[in-house]
């Protein structure tokens, strides 16, 4: 098999897997195809997702669905103020029978972790997830333990009930690839949801052709091979610099944020069946990627991002 044929084969495999994933997730969360695209992009880019929305909009359902799609190990933490870091990472317990310490892994030792209402827990517990999210490993009692290579955190936070909440620090926000608001479904989707519940339909993510974690890793590694032309990279740098010099911004994008932006744009390009990134991809993922890590002077981040995208000249075919 020649290199080109191999490439075509890989591409068609990827396309098939992505289409399957897209189909299954859209069946779970109806009427949110655009949001699902971003969620898949985040997953393929190897980033972590922060869902900032009201209760009952399907955040948990989405996390569970992703886990089921890939047959992945799913864990959930309901974040409360009394949650301890060891409840997240795990701990060593002395076994009196064996006279040895035994490690009891926490929920982070899963493939997909749902941290529900993450802003309800204390900063101490929030920071316990830093290492896990950034390096995909945790260090307990001086011993580093690797996590799953496809470790994916979906954290949710409720923007309404701010009483007793601990806003996520900037350092932790920067570790999320993107922040999404799912929002209410439209009327047709709501009717479909009602019928789906009434009919007690089977979970469509469980049956049929399965996607494995190996496939997910394959997709993630394929994202890294997506070409980014120098002109697009320069555009990306221009945008990042614009976030730092914009007068309404207190904290602009860090180099880590810039790298994540490029990765998510690559994943987005793959979702569009392209093996190269175009400026449209950068713009398409700008709001969720930049919005999570931009600290503004009281203005909505989306407005600032919009104005930055308008001001910075996009590369053209000239």
């Amino acid at each position, binding site marked *: 098999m020649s290199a080109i044929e191999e490439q075509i084969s890989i591409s068609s495999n990827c396309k098939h897997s992505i289409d399957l994933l897209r189909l299954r997730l859209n069946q779970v969360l109806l009427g949110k195809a655009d949001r699902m695209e971003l969620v898949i992009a985040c997953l393929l880019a190897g980033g972590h997702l922060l869902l900032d929305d009201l209760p009952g909009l399907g955040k948990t359902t989405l996390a569970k669905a992703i886990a089921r799609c890939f047959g992945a190990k799913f864990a959930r933490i309901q974040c409360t103020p009394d949650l301890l870091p060891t409840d997240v990472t795990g701990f060593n317990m002395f076994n009196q029978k064996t006279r040895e310490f035994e490690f009891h892994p926490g929920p982070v030792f899963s493939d997909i972790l749902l941290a529900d209402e993450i802003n309800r827990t204390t900063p101490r517990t929030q920071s316990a997830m830093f290492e896990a999210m950034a390096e995909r490993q945790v260090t307990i009692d001086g011993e580093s333990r690797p996590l799953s290579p496809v470790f994916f955190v979906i954290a949710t936070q409720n923007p309404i009930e701010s009483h007793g909440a601990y806003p996520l620090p900037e350092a932790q926000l920067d570790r999320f690839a993107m922040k999404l608001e799912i929002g209410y479904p439209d009327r047709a989707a709501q009717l479909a949801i009602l019928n789906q519940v009434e009919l007690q339909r089977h979970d469509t993510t469980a049956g049929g052709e399965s996607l494995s974690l190996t496939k997910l890793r394959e997709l993630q590694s394929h994202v890294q091979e997506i*070409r980014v*032309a120098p*002109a*697009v990279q320069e555009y990306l740098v221009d945008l990042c610099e614009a976030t730092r*010099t*914009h*007068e*309404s911004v207190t904290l602009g994008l860090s180099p880590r944020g810039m790298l994540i932006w490029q990765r998510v744009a690559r994943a987005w390009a793959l979702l569009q069946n*392209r*093996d*190269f*990134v*175009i*400026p*449209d991809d950068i*713009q398409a993922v700008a709001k969720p990627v930049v919005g999570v890590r931009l600290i503004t002077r009281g*203005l909505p981040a*989306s*407005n*600032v991002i*919009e*104005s930055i*995208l*308008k*001001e*910075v*000249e*996009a*590369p*053209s*075919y*000239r």
Partner: protein
Amino acid sequence: MTASVATPWITNLVAKQFGNGNVLEIIMLTSLGWGSLAIALLSFQFRTLSLSVVCSGFLTLFATFISDSPIALWFSLVWGILCLWWLVNNYWAQVETVTAVGIQPARFQRIAFTLFGCAIFLVGASLVAGRIPVIRKLQTELMPTSGGTTGKDSAARSGVGNGDALIAAKKHATSFGAVETDVFLDSEEPSLFDVFSDEFGEPMKKPERVERAQALSPQDVKSEKGKFTEANRSASGSEFSIERELPEERKPVDDLVAESLMFWQGESGTHLAAQRFSHFDGSNWSNAEVSPPASARPIECTIIGKQSWFGPSGTSVQNSISPFVDALPEAIKFTRYRSPTIPTRQGVQLWCIDQIDRQDFFAISLDGCLQMPDREHVPDYTVVRMINSRIDLERLEDLVRNCSPGKSHRELTDDCRLELNRLAHDYAGNLPRGWQQVQSILSGLRTQFVLDRAREFALSDSTGDSESWALNQFLQHHRGPDYLFATAAALMLDHLGYRTRLVAGFYANPKHHVAREAEIAILPSDAHAWLEIDVGHGYWIPLEPSPGYRAPQYTASIWYRMKQHRWAIAMWTLTVSATTLCLYLLRGLLIEWISWVAFPALFLLNDRLRITWLTWLLDIRCQLAGVPRTKGTVLREHLNRFRTCLQSDLAEQVHLYLESADRMWFGGVKNLPKSDQAAIARVWQGLTTRELRRGNRQMSEGQLA
């Protein structure tokens, strides 16, 4: 940044090694200016940019305050408008950032606010103008000087007590300035008359004609000399002959400073008049029309600061806030000059000599030249400061009213007279009367005649006994010395009806610039003759007919200049406006026509250039269709707006074009398949301005529906 601040200092150090350089405060200001410019250009931070604005504000206001030129006020006004625009722009940028979604840049509001601010400023300025006493005081003089008048006056930088007089005294032990008299001193230096004779040649002595006298009674004899009274003759004291021997050859000047007659601190190319002659008898210029005798123009004294300034009576200095505003402060320093006449440029308003407060030190002769009466010559090392007004072209309005039908010069030989008349009519016969005729004659002489002081032709045709011999030779050979140029021009203008007079004096030759002292040495070789024309009410304007000499600098208000060229300006404005309007209205057609003509060339280009050209064309078409693409919008997103309104085939071609362009620009593809190339050609031809406009209209209607 550091380099920009240090450069003026380093340059000054180097310049000083070569005898130039500037003073400390000028270097400091230059350094500050360069520094703020560097900050403005290189800085990316808002605070440092603001610092550059503050610096530029300081420099602008400082320059406006210390400058005597009213133009400086315009600079500060422009600066103020720019600052206002900056502030308004900042304000609206903030507003737009807050409401970023769906808001177009508010250009109209920006312009309206700026204009509103300018209007408030102008109304406010006109309300307080002239009502605040301190402003009147500031307008006269802000900075203390040491006797000079402006920052550019070198005397102003000499310091109190170490001025030119002191320097002169140190250099020359016999220097005693103007307050002393030198009646007992004798000198072998050349007088003014000798200077002209040396430079132009000795006047020829004509053989006396002996004719048989008719017996007339003494009372019937009307002497030719009777036309001129002795008093009149003594007013100018001399004649100026145009028929002269060849001047002796002179060796080149070795030392400008040592051989100079005087030093001129002012504009180079200035004409300094020493004698004026208004009557020409065919070979000699003299003052003939002077009357009444000895009624020289009185002189008035004005105290400005602690210095007595003198000027012809009637000079409206008191009406002005400051005599230095809109005037030329200049000075002349005498060294080996041997004449009581002080050479001045036309339009001298005021003059002074340090410590002189008596106006009888000066007199204005009947020909309008400034003199020091009862003196053999102006004392050495006397420094005369002058305030000269510029030659006002607006006075030319009177020229047409003042000219007469013209006269024929009977004193000339027929040949000479006819040739002069012919030339005058050739040069200016078809032109309307006034300044155009004058300029045309000067231009004719300057371009068709050659300046030649040596007069090589004169040796072969030396027939000095005939009348108007020199002028004949000049007209025949089209070459001669400067006084013949002046004479010919004066006679031609006389023939056309303009009143003229010959002026002998000195020319501030730019070649004799003494860099160290920032002044011009006037040598005997700078003796020069030119003419003046009376434009009416006794206002004479100098004219330079000789090639190689700079024409005098004239001035006029912008309004007057515009009025003079009103028809040309109107025609130009009309033509440009009409052309611009036509181009604007037909811009869509023009672009489409150009794209149609250029279409075959598309196939000669490589794929990348085809896409570049098409993108450029589509951007222009979008602009013409009223839907310009903003710089942050990618072309795909922009064109996708029209996709639903386009024909399906064309929409497909647009999609193909965008796909191929993406592959080529960002996907690393080198060549396109034939189908993509065809799509590019189809989009070039199909997605026209009209199509885009139609799509835009359909979209608008759809949105409204």
